[in-house]
């Protein structure tokens, strides 16, 4: 009895410590973003702002952050939608349609996970230039999709393998074509895994930096990370301003995660637990 209570108490302590470790940096960044530059240097870094002022946010927007936001949103959502469609179709074919080289196709997809991104920078840069997509937002989508596919196919095939084949056979007898089986049965049933894939890739593309750096040159096409990088250069000594940029770029992803965390966790653990 007593032992049980102690265990629970220790668990709470552990959770609390973890919360502080994970949450404090975010609170620190937010706190600092509300301070003026002068205030940041004159008061303790731990102190709360003298008055809650959102001047930094207004300035950040004026400095073009809205533009970066839209650019990032366009590239990220386009890439995520394409990945979901392509990865789901590929996974369906790999897991559900028998053909000689299905294992090989799967292996080729998954092998993509082992390619370090930096080894592709120069080839991707040259290809993008050659096909005339250098310094365009569309030019970013291709490499993003290519790099998102391996893990997405890996997650989705794992999930789809667990969908009982009888479900598909019932649909065959009901008169569904292969494409209808995919759109009406397999795709809706894979929802948890699709959410996982979508959120996972979304976070990565939202924070993507290296490809954006080498494929985009004009400031009007910068994404958030490039904007932030530039911010850091321009406001090298204006720490609260940089922190404001960090908050602005992080908030959308955090909100999305809060909304869909159940789905993401279900997708991650799919197959591990029997429903």
């Amino acid at each position, binding site marked *: 009895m007593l032992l049980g209570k102690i265990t629970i108490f220790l668990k709470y302590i552990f959770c609390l410590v973890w919360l502080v470790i994970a949450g404090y940096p975010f609170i620190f960044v937010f706190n600092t973003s509300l301070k003026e530059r002068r205030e940041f240097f004159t008061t303790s870094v731990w102190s709360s702002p003298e008055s809650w002022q959102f001047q930094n946010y207004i300035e950040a927007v004026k400095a073009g952050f809205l533009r970066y936001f839209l650019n990032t949103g366009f590239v990220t959502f386009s890439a995520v939608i394409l990945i979901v469609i392509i990865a789901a179709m590929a996974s369906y074919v790999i897991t559900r349609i028998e053909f000689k080289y299905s294992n090989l196709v799967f292996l080729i997809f998954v092998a993509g996970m082992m390619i370090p991104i930096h080894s592709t920078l120069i080839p991707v840069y040259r290809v993008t230039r050659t096909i005339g997509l250098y310094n365009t937002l569309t030019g970013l989508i291709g490499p993003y999709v290519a790099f998102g596919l391996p893990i997405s196919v890996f997650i989705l095939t794992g999930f789809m393998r667990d969908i*009982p084949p*009888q*479900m598909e*056979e*019932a*649909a*065959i*007898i*009901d*008169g*569904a074509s292969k494409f*209808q089986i995919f759109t*009406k*049965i397999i795709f*809706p*049933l894979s*929802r948890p895994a699709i959410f996982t894939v979508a959120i996972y890739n979304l976070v990565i593309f939202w924070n993507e930096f290296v490809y954006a750096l080498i494929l985009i040159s004009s400031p009007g096409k910068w994404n958030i990370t490039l904007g932030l990088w530039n911010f850091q250069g321009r406001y090298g000594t204006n720490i609260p301003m940089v922190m404001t940029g960090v908050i602005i770029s992080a908030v959308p992803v955090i909100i999305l995660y809060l909304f869909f965390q159940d789905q993401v966790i279900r997708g991650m653990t799919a197959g591990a637990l029997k*429903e």
Partner: protein
Amino acid sequence: MAKVEFNNVTKIFDNPEGEVVAVDNANLHVRDKEFLVLVGPSGCGKTTSLRMIAGLEDITDGTIEIGNTVVNDIPPKDRDIAMVFQNYALYPHMDVFGNMAFGLKLRKFPKMEIEKRVQNAAEMLGIRNLLDRKPKQLSGGQRQRVALGRAIVREPKVFLMDEPLSNLDAKLRVQMRTELSKLHDELQTTAVYVTHDQTEAMTMGDRIVVLRDGVIQQVDDPLSLYNEPNNMFVAGFIGSPAMNFLDVRLVKEEGVYYFLDESLERGMTFRIAIPDRVLEMVPNIDEYLGEDVVFGIRPEDLVDSALAQEFDITEDNSFQADVEVVEPMGSEIYLYLKFGENDLIARVEADSDAKVGDRVKLGIDYNKMHMFDAVTEESVF
């Protein structure tokens, strides 16, 4: 409504370990409106046969006809069949109405017609109040009904059912068994039903097909199958508890044929005479004279001699065995007996006072005994 015909159908699976013959040269005729049950132990080819009718498995050799059309190359959706799966295979993301209407929607039926058919089927199955539920909100029995409903709304030529009751608990299974039979009477549609449960087969089938290792052993109505099995496999598979088999020798003494077991210890004998009227039906009986044969008797045809009324117990129709276990079932008693090296089961009347350790005398009903060829296992009578 249609008949289904198997003409020399063979199915071979190409496994990495080699070829497996799942169905071997099967010839079968399912009559129009018939309820035909395929029964056999796991791996006997019954589900494969069903899946070949459905079009979910290719046919390696031979032809299958539905109606009078060879369907070998016709895709499942154009065969006009409906199938009920063992695990129901309901679509979890659709409600009951959606599940039942799915096939009709894909076939572009008018909305009114879909609504009418689904409502009718739901009414028939008593699930009208569940139409807006999702499968996971239903009990096993309700899911089973939805799966049936999905098949019924299509109004197919042939119903295919793959062990549809095996996931239900014992009580519900018995209930659904009668409901399925009633439903078949009402719909008058040809049905092919797969089960490994011989009770289901006996109670539901107009005719039963017994399969073993991909080979059809016998096709007959339930009672003929029970009373006149073709071979030892059918005799042992149909009926519960299973038929008793004894290895004996056929001998002739002073003009009378006997089943004789010579391997017994002193004090125990097995010497059962074969009456003339049985012998009349087996003109070639002398071929077996002096040979090893198998004697078969069903548990209920062994009678506790203390209670025998229907016939006289004599030295020629009885033997003694030791009681090892007594299982009172209420209306009757199962006696598990040891007889020499053999284990036997007798189903005797409830007033038998046989106890564990007793040596009881058992009478054999002459009219009910069977003889099988020891080598081919085929029935002689």
